[in-house]
């Protein structure tokens, strides 16, 4: 009898003939390991992935373990500091729940039933390629959609779909987040706002935040700068139906009726113009359409706005006058998540126009003009399509399709040129305007990002091919036909990150150690798949190091030098005066100026000036569902992270204290949230508080996971996304307005879950 020899381990030469080690073995087995910092520690530059601020980090590494990460001073995103999310992020790499090996759904099993078998990478990639080529043959390349989110998404939503020939590539960060803000910025300034919001915080003297949850959507240096602004004496006004973290720091809190922000903005414009308080010289020099604007806002008095917003007219006047006193160092920063009620591009236009009246765009204490760093692409043959997934930088330029290629499946539903991810779900069900039969989901949580989860599930069940590339076994991942486990941010290179900024810069992510388990980096997956799809010509580089080195050569660097630097900073042109020295202006609009009145919108059949539309009323007995961020979690990505879950293990529902009393809820009671379509979430703890208006409730986004394979996240709190069964499409940006969802509260028992703290205590025992 002889068993087949396995070979997972090998004996080193040193061990041959070694003396008996029995006694020593017992000692070793009971010894404590030496602290990591007494061992040989390597320092590796990388980029944090626990939110999308993308802070430059330095990782302290021993062997195959990162023990500590910190920011470094030379990186403009971290400046030597890191938030809790960044500090806790390495725990994800060592999460026992991680996806570890490629998996293929068992043939004949139902999608969503979760029956899988292990596969080799070759087998998994061959399987995908065969299916893709078959779908292309039958329906055309556009029948496969590509969704992605994260630093590595470029391979899967930009490069691969463009090489493959599908225009249906999308990111949630566009139509479920920034689309209205970016599209409005394009129509007003002819420039993007971009992922690093270009506010000159340290020099501003007066800040008005509208629905901007700074301090909750903690972006590292933004928070540093905002704190500095306050330290420097800047006044702060917070407009929010909820007494947010920022409101708690404010000089004034204006508890606005939800959905009436445009009314307030129009009234402020009215005061600035009626009382001659706007920056006349700036408006004359840099804008067009002032006369039309003045006529347009004339009826929107503070008294009119008071009826809409429930903010006293006198307060509206006072704030407008205070803004004017501090101009141009008074600013209303645009927030990121701007898909609220479906008329959001117009609201964002109103915000920008108001900023322009204060004369702050391109001037100190207002908006600086962010420039991307110079960096060449890797030279490849021209891609069949222009990458068009968009992202935080707004709509891409390409609109017409090359001959032989179909337009995006969402084209014609709205004006902007960017793709709306939620509008690509319907074609998967109806086959209209043409069938989408395949889907790649890279790093996006389909059920915690895209509204109307039942519709998404129906769409997934109809696909011929669904591939998930991820790190954790999230709900939607376990529906896939093929699951490809990606290496985490600490285990991989990604493409260079080029950040538009006051001082444009390029930052590098490099692996701190080899990928654990049988996981692979995204670039490798894309290249290997490309090879199998006959797209080798678009992946001419040998490996990622050659790719990065070639790109860095274009800015006079090489990869080895960049590995020692982490970040390369370039010069920018942040102020209008910098541009004027070169006899130019930064505005990319048709007129070359800031367009208060938009001729382009008028020509397209939309209001050329922002028009207020009252929000839809909540059904009787329901509260408007508001949602926001936690400073220690990011989206639905971090709820399995033990470090962060110890700090915040669940969300709670904020309910006005008087309403709580009326409904018989005490602080600490649990409730189910039931929406207008009967969808139930929770149980979730009730936070009875004076800090929210009576007509709305609030929960933080990202909780309420239903993936049992995520042992910490599963079943904790309530999901706002599952409750968002409706959305209102913004006809200009394609954004999905999510705040027209309503919930009522029903009493619920406390969940029977072991506390996170107890679980972690047991892990540490």
């Amino acid at each position, binding site marked *: 009898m002889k068993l087949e020899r396995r070979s997972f*381990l090998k004996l080193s030469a040193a061990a041959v003939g070694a003396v008996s*080690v029995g006694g020593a073995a017992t000692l070793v087995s009971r010894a404590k390991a030496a602290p990591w910092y007494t061992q040989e520690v390597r320092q590796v530059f990388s980029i944090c992935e626990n939110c999308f601020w993308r802070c430059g980090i330095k990782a302290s590494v021993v062997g195959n373990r990162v023990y500590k990460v910190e920011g470094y001073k030379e990186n403009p995103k971290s400046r030597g500091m890191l938030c809790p999310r960044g500090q806790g992020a390495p725990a994800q790499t060592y999460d*026992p729940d991680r996806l570890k090996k490629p998996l293929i759904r068992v043939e004949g099993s139902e999608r969503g039933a*979760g029956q899988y078998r292990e596969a080799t990478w070759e087998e998994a990639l061959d399987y995908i390629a065969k299916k893709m080529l078959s779908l292309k043959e039958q329906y055309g390349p556009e029948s496969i959609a590509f969704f992605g989110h994260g630093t590595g998404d470029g391979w899967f939503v930009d490069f691969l779909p463009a090489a493959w020939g599908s225009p249906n590539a999308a990111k949630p960060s566009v139509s479920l987040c920034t689309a209205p803000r970016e599209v409005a910025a394009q129509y007003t300034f002819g420039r993007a706002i971009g992922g690093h919001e270009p506010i000159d915080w340290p020099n501003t003297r007066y800040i008005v935040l509208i629905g901007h949850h700074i301090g909750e959507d903690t972006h590292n240096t933004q928070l540093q700068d905002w704190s500095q602004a306050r330290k420097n004496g800047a006044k702060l006004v917070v407009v929010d139906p909820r007494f947010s973290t920022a409101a708690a720091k404010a000089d004034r809190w204006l508890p606005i009726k939800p959905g009436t922000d445009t009314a307030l903005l129009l009234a402020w414009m009215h005061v600035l113009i009626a009382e001659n308080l706007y920056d006349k010289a700036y408006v004359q020099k840099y804008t067009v359409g002032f006369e039309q604007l003045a006529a347009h806002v004339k009826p929107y008095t503070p008294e009119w706005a008071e009826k809409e917003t429930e903010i006293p007219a006198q307060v509206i006047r006072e704030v407008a006058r205070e803004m004017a006193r501090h101009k141009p160092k008074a600013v209303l920063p645009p927030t990121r998540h701007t898909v609220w009620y479906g008329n959001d591009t117009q609201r964002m236009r109103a915000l920008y126009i108001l900023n322009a009246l204060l004369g702050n765009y391109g001037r100190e204490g207002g908006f600086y003009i962010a420039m991307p760093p110079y960096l060449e692409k890797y030279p490849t043959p021209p891609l069949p399509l222009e990458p068009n997934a968009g992202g935080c930088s707004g709509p891409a330029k390409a609109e017409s399709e090359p001959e032989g290629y179909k337009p995006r499946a969402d084209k014609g539903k709205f004006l902007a040129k960017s793709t709306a991810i939620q509008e690509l779900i319907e074609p998967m069900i109806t086959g209209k305007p043409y069938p989408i039969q395949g889907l790649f989901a890279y790093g996006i949580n389909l059920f915690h990002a895209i509204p109307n989860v039942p519709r998404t599930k129906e769409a997934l069940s109809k696909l011929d091919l669904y591939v998930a590339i991820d790190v954790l076994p999230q709900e939607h991942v376990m529906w896939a036909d093929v699951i490809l486990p990606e290496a985490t941010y600490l285990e991989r290179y990604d493409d260079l990150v080029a950040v538009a900024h006051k001082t444009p810069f390029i930052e590098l992510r490099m692996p701190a150690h080899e990928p654990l388990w*049988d996981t692979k980096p995204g670039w490798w997956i894309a290249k290997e798949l490309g090879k199998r799809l006959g797209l080798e010509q678009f992946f001419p580089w040998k490996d990622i190091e050659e790719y990065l080195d070639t790109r860095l050569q274009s800015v006079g660097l090489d990869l080895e030098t960049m590995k020692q630097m982490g970040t390369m900073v370039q010069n920018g042109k942040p102020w209008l005066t910098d541009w004027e020295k070169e006899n130019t202006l930064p505005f990319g609009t048709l007129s070359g100026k800031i367009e208060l009145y938009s001729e382009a919108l008028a020509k397209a059949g939309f209001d050329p000036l922002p028009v207020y539309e009252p929000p839809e009323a909540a059904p009787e007995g329901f509260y408007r569902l508001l949602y926001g961020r936690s400073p220690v979690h990011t989206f639905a990505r971090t709820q399995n992270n033990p470090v962060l879950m110890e700090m915040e293990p669940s969300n709670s529902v904020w309910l006005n204290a008087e309403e709580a009393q009326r409904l018989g809820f005490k602080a600490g009671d649990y409730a189910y949230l039931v929406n207008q379509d009967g969808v139930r979430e929770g149980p979730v703890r009730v936070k009875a508080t004076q800090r929210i208006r009576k007509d709305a409730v609030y929960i933080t986004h990202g909780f309420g996971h239903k993936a049992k394979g995520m042992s910490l996240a599963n079943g904790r709190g309530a999901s706002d996304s599952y409750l968002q069964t409706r959305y209102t499409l913004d006809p200009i940006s394609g954004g999905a307005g999510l705040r027209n969802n309503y919930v009522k509260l029903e009493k619920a028992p406390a969940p029977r879950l072991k506390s996170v703290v107890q679980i972690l205590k047991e892990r540490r025992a």
Partner: protein
Amino acid sequence: MQLLGWVTAAAFAPPKAALEQDLLAGTLQAALDEMAKTYGLAPPKLPKTDLRALQIAHTSLFVSNPAGLPCPPYVGMALDERLFGLGFERLMALYRLAGLEVSPDWRDLPDHLAAVGEAIALLGEKPELARTLALEYLYPWLKRYAPVLQEADPTGFYSSIAVFLSKVLEEVNGETRAAQLP
């Protein structure tokens, strides 16, 4: 102890052609029978299961399962309730002491059951060290997860082997304790 190591490595590694060969040739069953004889136990009767069913079961028990992974196959999970804890560090120190290195082809953690099993087998000439590995690392995992496998294993293959190995190590543990008595 060497045979116990090989059986552990053969049974808990990702099921591929080698396991299929062991099953077809009856070598795994024979190894179990021999161990049973040595320790005076009733041998388990391995169920007749094809490779595909074993692959599906192995994945759902040890790799990924939407309903929650019932048996993470790492001895550190039984020792520390987490990966890369103190138990893992100690195991690595033991490997180093024994001159064991992880093969570059092994795309899993070094405290995976199959790797620990192989380590026990490779240390045939260092029985005390092999016994330490078996009793202080493999046995806690089996004690904790053999009952879980009895509930969750759709094939009966993994559960019958885990329960049997657990009984063997109970015997070994008893012998070791008896030998240590004054």
